């Protein structure tokens, strides 16, 4: 569904990067990258996590100073070099960036956020300027279709609305180049489509957009041209209309993309039974009278936009929260007290959402982190004394089996990549042949290869070891590929479970935004 936009092959270039090289110590994050952006086009910057997309945009935006190369911006029909390392210069040249994590003051209204920093605090006559600004903004809103309440405090707005404020902020500052960093990460499919509709309108008026993404689907539906980065290098450039998904994915990963496996299996006895369970809001949005059954030998996927009660559901099933109402049974045992250790020994594997914060102790070694949940087992300690050599040899074995890339059992976890830390956590938890697995956003931030590996291990746990698996994910494609049944979480309420094979993306999307009966 590509569309004709104002940007064609003959549209003038508004921005050019020439040979941009950026190093961090021994790591070359950007290696001689060339890039041009024409007026009115949407350019996709496609690449896996760590490919150098965000670094490149931070060089463009003046947040980093590149070791080599330069940035050129069109001014009065000619390309002129941009002062490096100066966000003010980039803003002045009409380059604006909407970060993945918004930079809004939550206790101010949308209008104030947009105006923040645009005028000196020492000038009088603020009221008149505000009125003028509002009029101008209204014009921009009408032209772009970025409808958003301007006078409501930002913390009362939805994620989609906050994003619109961010974009309005850029447009208000007369941005000519808009950089969007993973803009759909927190959006429902409907909100994402709406965003792309807006971009279409904006490019028609001459705005140029760089869309940073690792999702092929959205790149295909919303961009004109695609640049692929891998390991800091530009490895491909193509018109979107001429691209095909398989070769793009291979370009991104550098090898054939592993296919997600979904083995045939039949569910057995229930391992988790939630009956009208409510959980207080201590862990984010509260859970509200939730019913759910997870059986041995099946993967149940929980779809939903982050912040709709996933935290409370995960806390309950991790042993960090107790029901405020209703009854929760895990492996046949009623949940009555906070006892993460008890659940772990009973046979529950828990893969935490924030693997750096909750999954590992960064300053401790690989061997120690592998033992973190198993301190009392005879292979780790006897009579309160650690068996260091047993721990080391066990770790060496696990490192080889799970292909954890590190400098050995005694290296600290802090310096490992997210994918390797996840492998460590999977080895620690799934290695004990659990009967129930809670996987909370287990592939977030991982590259395709590592994500496929996680999916394979979950499939293995459900199929070969007959574990019940609850997979909480924001990535609907992942859920549809991996799960047997899917439930949708919206504002603490859980929908009926439906078979994943018959699931309709659109219907799930509507449920995620609360527009259909959950």
């Amino acid at each position, binding site marked *: 569904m590509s569309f004709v936009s104002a940007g064609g092959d003959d549209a003038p270039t508004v921005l050019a990067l020439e040979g941009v090289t950026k190093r*961090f*110590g021994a790591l070359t994050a950007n290696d001689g990258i060339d890039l041009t952006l024409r007026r009115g086009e949407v350019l996709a910057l496609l690449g896996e996590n760590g490919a150098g997309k965000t670094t490149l945009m931070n060089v463009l935006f003046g947040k980093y100073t590149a070791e080599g190369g330069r940035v050129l911006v069109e001014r009065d029909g000619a390309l002129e070099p941009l002062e490096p390392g100066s966000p003010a210069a980039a803003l002045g040249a009409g380059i604006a960036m909407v970060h993945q994590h918004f930079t809004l003051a939550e206790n101010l209204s949308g209008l104030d956020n947009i105006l923040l920093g645009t005028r000196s605090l020492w000038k009088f006559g603020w009221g008149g300027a505000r009125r003028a600004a509002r009029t101008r903004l209204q014009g921009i809103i009408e032209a772009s279709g970025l409808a958003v309440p301007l006078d409501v405090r930002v913390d009362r707005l939805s994620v989609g609305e906050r994003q619109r404020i961010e974009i309005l902020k850029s447009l208000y500052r007369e941005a000519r180049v808009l950089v969007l960093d993973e803009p759909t990460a927190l959006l429902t499919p409907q909100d994402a489509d709406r965003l792309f509709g807006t971009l279409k309108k904006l490019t028609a008026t001459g705005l140029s957009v760089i869309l940073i993404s690792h999702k092929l689907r959205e790149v295909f539906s919303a961009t004109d041209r695609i640049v692929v980065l891998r390991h800091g290098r530009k490895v491909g450039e193509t018109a979107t209309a001429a691209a095909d998904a398989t070769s793009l994915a291979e370009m991104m990963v550098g090898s054939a993309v592993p296919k997600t496996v979904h083995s045939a299996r039949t569910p057995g006895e229930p391992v988790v039974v939630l009956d009208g369970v409510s959980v207080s809001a201590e862990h984010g949005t509260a859970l509200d009278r939730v019913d759910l059954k997870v059986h041995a030998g099946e993967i149940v996927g929980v779809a939903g936009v982050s912040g709709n009660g996933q935290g409370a559901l995960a806390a309950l099933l991790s*042993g*960090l929260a107790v029901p405020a109402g209703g009854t929760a049974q895990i492996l046949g045992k009623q949940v009555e007290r906070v006892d993460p*250790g008890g659940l772990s020994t009973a046979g529950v594997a828990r893969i935490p959402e924030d693997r750096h914060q*909750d999954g*590992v*102790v960064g300053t401790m070694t690989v061997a120690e982190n592998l033992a973190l949940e198993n*301190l009392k087992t005879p292979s780790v300690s006897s009579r309160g004394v650690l068996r260091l050599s047993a721990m080391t040899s066990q770790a060496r074995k696990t490192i080889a089996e799970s292909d954890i890339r590190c400098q050995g059992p005694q290296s600290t976890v802090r310096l490992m990549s997210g994918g390797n830390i996840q492998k460590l956590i999977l080895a620690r938890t799934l290695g004990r042949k659990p009967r129930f697995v809670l996987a909370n956003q287990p592939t977030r931030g991982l590259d395709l290869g590592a994500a496929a590996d996680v999916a394979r291990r979950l499939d293995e746990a459900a199929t070969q070891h007959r574990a019940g698996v609850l997979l909480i994910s924001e990535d609907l494609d992942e859920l549809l590929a991996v799960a047997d049944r899917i439930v949708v979480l919206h504002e603490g309420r859980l929908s009926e479970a439906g078979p994943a094979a018959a699931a309709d993306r659109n219907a799930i999307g509507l449920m995620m935004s609360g527009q259909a009966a959950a």
Partner: protein
Amino acid sequence: MSEVAAAPLKRSRPASAGAISVGVRVLAGIAALLLAALPLLATGAPIIEAYGLMVTGALGSAFAVSETLTRATPLILTGLAAAVAFRAKLWNIGAEGQLYAGAIATVVVGTGLIEAPAFITLPAVVLAGAAAGAFLMLIPTLLKVRLGVDEVVTTLLLNFVVLLFVQMLLDGALKDPMGMGWPQSPPVVPAAELPEIWPRTRLHAGLILGIVAALVLSFVIARTTFGFRMRAVGENAAAARFAGISVAKTMIGVGLISGALAGLAGVGEVAGLKGYLTSDISPGFGYAGIVVAMLAGLSPIGSVVSALFIAAIYVGADSMSRALGVSSYLADLIVAMALISILIGEVVARRLTRGAR
């Protein structure tokens, strides 16, 4: 094959990080000593001579060495108290109060409560002192884990409470009837005294207690499941909790050990050095213990070394100030500057070791 993949990151980091850490600590100690020249200059004292007098005062004779070791004894124990607590991010600033609690217990048990030979009385005194310190630290630890009360505030304020309590006791229940009206306790019985370990000096068995405590603590931290839990809780409490380690239980255990160690320092000062309790047995050993621990990077064995360094500064500066007529508060100034230097040094070290990230 995993080794090959990690090659770009291979920069022998652990070893160099350790070397930088030790280097920064040594430099911080030297910087603190050099900075002492400023107040010395202000008093008009001859700088070179003053430094010379400090060195001979701390290490120049057998007597000087024995004094330095004697002074190091409580510092080792309060240093260990701070090191073990800080490892678990339990900020015990109350070693001073716990030291006095240990001292009170020593007097209560050691002045005639038990009439038994030394091999019974002495262990009873030591245990009572440790228990008193542990109990005093238990209160703020429980308040922290149950109610979330900031332990920095509670432990710090308890120091003043305990000191006032000591003064009250010395004017009442524990006042020595033969003390000619001085606010001091009766002396402990001979069976409760820690033996002298260097004839004709003041050095007592408290030093051995401190060194043994350092060795045991070192083993506990590195080699036991309790030490593992303690490190995990200190370095990432969220992950420890998620993995099923009870943060509250671990904190309570750490608090008890920390308080007990500080209590032992009080036992040493009363049963080993002075023989009786006064309200000035500690010129801030509890607070100096924090510097000892920080300077040692919270390592138990390192705490022994840094306690010796700090003790040498105290003894050397004392002796120098007597010879030159300079205020002996100079020692406190150097110790304070050592703490500031190490805090600055740690920031610099962190920058240096981060580099490649």
